């Protein structure tokens, strides 16, 4: 209530509240419609210093509590205020191995920045932009700050999936002295950071650099290996591994089950984004993977993935891009910043409508879609306003490409080959609050548990599970631990 006043008393050099949040330079909308380069250009040192100086270093540290991985935010900002960027990087790296990623794709407005004391005045410190600045600065320095590594425990852990959750667990456990093998089904590590989030929002070089950092902690990355196929979960547990963390990520894309949904040029967002980002279809034919694109693209859905697909479509040469969402702007799950970016790039939003079918051009290519207008009901007991169709309000819209972005259902590969792993009726793996599954020595996190959430929440689940796994590995079977701190010579 009065925190804003309290800190004023102690650090006397602090001037009065500065409510001028420093904007981050961006590529102009006109320019960025035609390239896959990063849209947000990041702070210069001058801008970062200015923004960092706005932090009042309040005692309560609400920002840190707002962070799913509990980064010591006031401390890294204080380091910036002292102009010690290296120290700032060190503080960051204590709690995240992926600062370049988090600084770009976390929904800070719902987390740290939402909690920031200055947010009461509507101008929270731009924590995400500062995090990004530090990560990018470190990248230009050549060598990364290394954390203090615990001596080897002699315990071996398998982490399944190298997305944000798996990378977090792998680095946490490696730092704690465990030997980690990180399995990845695809040919590159990073999971959704590589196949899902586009280059212009999260450059792939940054992801790969953070993957290499995790490897430099001693994590053994094994690409092209599908758990559930090449090794069953039981084979891992009965073999060399003391514990397993499951983070295999999103599975089969959801569709609407309306007529014509399998016509040509109707894509799932996963296929559309995988071709574009992971396989670099935007550089076809230099890269061999093509992506057929029309001129009038409809993206169905209102989440961040839908925004990514719509914004990729613009860059791939679509003339008109529509986002079709059955509720209103206020209910859209996408980050406001992404919606604004999309609007600046000329994407048109159609609210309160829902596709009821797709029409063929006579050769099984999509030529149009039929929609029905929706209205929101009065709030029900849960306070939620449901969208319901307005009878007789059907209409037709001409489109030649459709991207269905309605989420995914969990990948069945591991549950179907692990009968004693409890799953919900939606197919997600059931865990306790620290990520422990029904199966002994197995923890899980990320989309396989949540059914689909953010990068940072997947990292948060990883952080909690890693702590629980470390406890288990430290307490159980003490006899196996060799006393000598023999390994970890690498950097």
């Amino acid at each position, binding site marked *: 209530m009065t925190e804003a006043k309290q800190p004023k008393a102690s650090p006397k050099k602090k001037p009065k509240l500065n409510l001028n949040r420093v904007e981050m330079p961006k590529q102009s909308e006109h320019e960025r419609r035609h390239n896959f380069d990063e849209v947000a250009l990041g702070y210069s040192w001058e801008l970062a210093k200015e923004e960092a100086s706005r932090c009042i270093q309040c005692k309560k540290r609400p920002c840190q509590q707002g962070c799913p991985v509990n980064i010591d935010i006031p401390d890294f900002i204080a380091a910036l205020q002292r102009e010690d960027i290296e120290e700032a990087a060190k503080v960051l790296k204590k709690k995240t191995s992926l600062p370049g990623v988090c600084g770009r794709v976390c929904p800070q407005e719902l987390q740290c920045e939402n909690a920031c004391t200055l947010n009461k005045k509507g101008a929270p410190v731009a924590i995400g932009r500062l995090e990004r600045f530090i990560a990018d600065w470190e990248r230009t320095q050549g060598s990364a700050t290394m954390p203090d590594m615990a001596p080897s425990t002699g315990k071996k852990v398998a982490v399944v999936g190298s997305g944000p959750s798996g990378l977090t667990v792998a680095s946490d456990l490696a730092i704690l002295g465990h030997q980690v093998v990180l399995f990845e*089904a*695809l*040919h590159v590590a990073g999971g959704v950071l590589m*196949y899902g989030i586009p280059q212009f929002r999260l450059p792939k070089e940054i992801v790969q650099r953070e993957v290499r950092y995790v490897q430099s902690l001693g994590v053994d990355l094994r*690409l*092209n*290996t*599908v758990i559930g*196929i*090449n090794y069953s979960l039981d084979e891992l547990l009965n073999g060399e591994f003391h514990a397993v963390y499951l983070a295999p*990520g*999103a*599975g*089969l*894309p959801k*569709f609407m*089950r309306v007529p014509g*949904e*399998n*016509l*040509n*040029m109707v*894509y*799932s967002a*996963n*296929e559309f984004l*995988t*071709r574009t980002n992971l*396989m*670099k279809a935007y550089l076809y034919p*230099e*890269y*061999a*993977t*093509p992506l*057929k694109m029309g001129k009038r693209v409809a993206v169905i859905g209102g989440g961040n993935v839908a925004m990514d697909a719509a914004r990729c479509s613009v860059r791939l040469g679509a003339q008109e891009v529509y986002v079709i969402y059955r509720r209103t702007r206020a209910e859209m799950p996408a980050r406001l910043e992404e919606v604004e970016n999309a609007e600046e790039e000329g994407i048109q939003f159609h609210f309160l409508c829902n596709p009821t079918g797709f029409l063929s051009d*006579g*050769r*099984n*290519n999509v030529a149009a879609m039929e929609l029905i207008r929706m209205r929101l009901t009065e709030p029900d007991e849960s306070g939620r306003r449901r969208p319901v169709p307005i009878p007789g309000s059907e209409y037709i819209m001409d489109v030649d490409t459709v991207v269905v972005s309605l989420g*995914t259902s969990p*990948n*069945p*590969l591991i549950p179907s080959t692990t009968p004693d792993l409890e799953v919900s009726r939606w197919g997600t793996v059931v865990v306790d609050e620290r990520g422990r599954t029904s199966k002994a020595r197995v923890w899980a996190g990320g989309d396989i548990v949540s059914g689909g959430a953010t990068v940072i929440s997947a990292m948060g689940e990883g952080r909690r599970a890693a702590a629980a796994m470390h406890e288990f590995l430290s307490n159980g079977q003490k006899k196996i631990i060799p006393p000598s701190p023999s390994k970890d010579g690498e950097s």
Partner: protein
Amino acid sequence: MYPIVDHEVLAPRVHRLRVQAPVVAEKAKPGQFVILIIDEKGERVPFTISDWDRDAGTVDFVFIEVGKTTRQLAALQPGDELLSFIGPLGRPAEVDHYGHVVTVLSGYGIAATVPIIRALKEQGNTVTTIVQAPDRERLFGQKPLEELSDQLILALGTRGDGMMESTTVAVRKLLDAHPRKRIDRVVAMCSLCLMRVLSEMTRPLGIKTMVHLTPVMVDGTGMCGACRLSVGGTNRFACVHGPEFDGHEVDGWEVLMARRCTYADESILQQGFQCRGCSQW
């Protein structure tokens, strides 16, 4: 990296590659496939496994040169390496004791069905194999089929040689003899058109007909949804629910066929494929 250890040209534009991939060989079963990437700029392309050797840690597959990636593959020699080689993907082919099984093969299926036929024989089935090829010159892989099958029928596009002119004629003859000479199951790994026709031919007789479908795939592990198709009124994904499906339950043939045309000019899937609107029938 995955080294090529052997490369054999089986017929004009038809190649067999043997790849060192012990992790894949270890779990391979009949009817499964791999996804490979040649190099950093390559695409992910599925190929059905035609043989494997667990002791040597090798996996074989047969392909036909039809597009950019397969032409690139055709130029690889022992010692060259593939960037990525993931598998065995998909569910294995169903194999049990059925009685008399008719297999219908063309293209890469001529080689990729061999492990299925071998497994069918191990289960004590009688196997009649029909192989379709455009002509004798482009026929390959006859020998293992001869050895394994109780009867081998060659269906070549040209008359003469005492061979059947078309696969459908050969199949029709067998079906006409049913149920006197009973057919318990049909397994087809051939062109999409032919698998569709076969499914329609066997439907009235109630002979279970398994077809091997290879729609366009990208990740191949149940993530991207490119390979979806409608089976029995619901969406199925060939990479995790297939690639073997009951041909009588497939209800999206037109769309499946049209989907292959999407990348007809770029993709590896078409063998000299020209869209003649066949998806319209």
